[in-house]
């Protein structure tokens, strides 16, 4: 893994300012995807800005009947929350259908949105991948094309 600096901001504007100063930096939530990609050499941030304890880990009821989910809410808490289970069961079931109990305990809601594709070629530096290296080609078109994700 390439060396990197580690920072924790006091507040959200501070975290944004830190990232602005570190153009090759990345926000760190639970790290379940980012740390893995860093081990593989796919992600090479020079600074990690830890926002896990900075953003909300609460699920709030809103006046219009909806909920606001904090970026630091772990996947496991979100899936188990009674409001989500009763009012948004697809969200709960989708979370429980992915990863494992140990991963869901670490993974955050915000991090989930920033998760990169699970495509095997994206994670393999020895193969071309347009997403990892724009213009290098897409190995998936003629290759193994299961376990992809829609986003990322």
């Amino acid at each position, binding site marked *: 893994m390439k*060396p*990197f*600096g580690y920072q924790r901001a006091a507040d959200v504007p501070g975290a944004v300012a830190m990232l602005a100063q570190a153009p090759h930096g990345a926000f760190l939530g639970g790290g379940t995807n980012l*740390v893995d990609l860093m081990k593989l050499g796919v992600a090479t941030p020079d600074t990690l800005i830890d926002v896990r304890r900075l953003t909300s880990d609460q699920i709030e009821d809103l006046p219009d009947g909806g909920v606001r989910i904090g970026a630091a809410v772990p996947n496991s808490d979100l899936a*188990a929350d009674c409001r989500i289970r009763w009012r948004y069961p697809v969200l709960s079931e989708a979370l429980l*259908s992915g990863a494992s109990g*140990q*991963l869901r305990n*670490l993974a955050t809601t915000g991090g989930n949105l920033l998760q990169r594709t699970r495509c095997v070629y994206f994670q393999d530096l020895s193969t071309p991948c347009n997403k990892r290296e724009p213009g290098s080609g897409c190995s998936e078109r003629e290759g193994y094309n299961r376990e992809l994700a829609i986003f990322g």
Partner: protein
Amino acid sequence: MGRGPWPPDAGEGGIVDAEIMLRVDGAGHRLVVDTRTTLLDALRERLGVTSPKKGCDHGQCGACTVLLDGRRALSCLALAVAHQGAEIVTAAGLADGDGLHPMQRSFISHDAFQCGYCTPGQIMSAVGMLREAEAGWPSAVSADPKADEVALDDAEIAERMSGNLCRCAAYANIVPAIADVARR
């Protein structure tokens, strides 16, 4: 991608060290780690706590499972520097002196392992999993995901323990070992 070190206080080769404190199996430790150090490597290589095992090192096998601030988590994907002050329990710290934890005794009495490499992770995952079930957390196979209480049948245990792989395939005894503790 050949990027220069940042922040500027990085040492030779861009390596950045950070001082952290961890509580492991009840004992406090202060140590300086390279920011790249995972909790698993901090435990095994720096503190000599070798019960969490390095299997895949990519979050897929569960051999490195510990309780991190009371919840089961993969120590191979957690950066030590991001868990300053964390309370960690490993399989080595579950026992009360010479008195083994009920989950440890159940794994022995059910012969729930062969080579034993995945066992500390299996046991820590099972302990964390039972807490989650007690809290009423549903799983992907729960018949009624809205139910307040969880009935841990074999299918529930297998699903909830799916993050722990056993290359010896001792699952046929692991599931009954966990079920036995769950019934108590």
